[in-house]
């Protein structure tokens, strides 16, 4: 018999805040709730198959795929599943003021960098988990986050110095 799973409530309590933060940074606060719900519905349906995998990376993978589906549906044109559109999302961006500006800049990053930055900082994942979620090497995950940060620093440097 497989190792027993914790009650789903414990799984939900542990992952819901970072999953929602990640989704808000990917699709904006207006659509994040709906995708959050779909993410945990899917996680609950296949909870038995979590068995042995890293739970945070597992649920973030589901969230990431749902966010990509959402972008694809919004774009109304076929987009390869693993790619986010290059165009900044027209949806709302979390935060206010300088933070809002920063997340607008995140939305304008190339898809890989955007996903990596959102997983690392909004989803609060370690690099190994970012890599597991994006199905790439840890080195590639670090590089995407690093390049994303570098680009963000030049884009929003002026706004950040006040804070």
């Amino acid at each position, binding site marked *: 018999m497989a190792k027993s799973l914790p*009650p*789903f*409530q414990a799984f939900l309590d542990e992952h819901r*805040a970072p999953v929602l933060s990640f989704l*808000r940074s990917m699709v904006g606060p207006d659509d994040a709730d709906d995708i959050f*719900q779909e993410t945990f519905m899917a996680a609950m349906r296949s909870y038995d198959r979590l068995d042995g995998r890293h739970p945070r990376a597992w649920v973030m993978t589901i969230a990431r795929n749902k966010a990509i589906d959402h972008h694809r549906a919004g774009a109304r044109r076929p987009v390869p599943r693993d790619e986010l559109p290059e165009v900044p999302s027209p949806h709302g961006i*979390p935060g206010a003021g300088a*933070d809002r500006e*920063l997340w607008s800049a995140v939305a304008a990053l190339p898809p890989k960098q955007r996903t990596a930055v959102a997983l690392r900082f909004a989803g*609060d994942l370690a690099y190994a988990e970012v890599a597991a979620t994006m199905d790439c090497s840890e080195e590639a995950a670090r590089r995407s986050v690093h390049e994303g940060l570098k680009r963000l620093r030049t884009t929003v440097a002026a706004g950040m110095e006040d804070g």
Partner: protein
Amino acid sequence: MTPERNPVAAALRRGAAAEDTDVARATDGFLRRADSAGLIDVAYTTVDTPFGTMLLAATDRGLVRLGLPMETFDGVLDELADRISPRVVELPRRLDAARREIDEYFSGARREFDLPLDRRLITGAFAVRVLDELSQVPFGQAITYSEAALRAGSPRAHRAAGNALGSNPIPLVIPCHRVVRSGGAIGGYGGGPELKRRLLLHEGWLS
């Protein structure tokens, strides 16, 4: 969370964090959808009583478990996940009827519970018989362990009857507190002897 030296990274963490109210709203929406999709195998809630906080858990068949204040609720939830299904979530509205009846019991307005029960956590035919027979012992009365064994059809099995009572997954509603020692001592209780004494006082068997 590690402190962030990079100001952009620090601002990203700060700016992305969803507020507790946002998380609560999104979670409510998820639970509503999971409930209507039939994904929730066990729903639970806690209820405050004059004798401490209790845990109530139900399947689609009925009340399956009542956790007494002495129990570790995390342990009870782990047991439910293990023995029934890991799809266990906190969903108070599924336990509205049970919570109402328990409130009425403690306020003195109710002497009998009228709730659908899921007996799947009662293991063994003898334990099922012992606990079923308890429904014949009304509020304010008590029987001895030997009598409980006799009623279940095994007059000499008073020790086994004691074990069956001790493993009662739905105490209070299945009133195992109404079984006492011959000779006046109230005997043991899963929720502790003090709770048993207070329940028997509440029902007027002790004064």
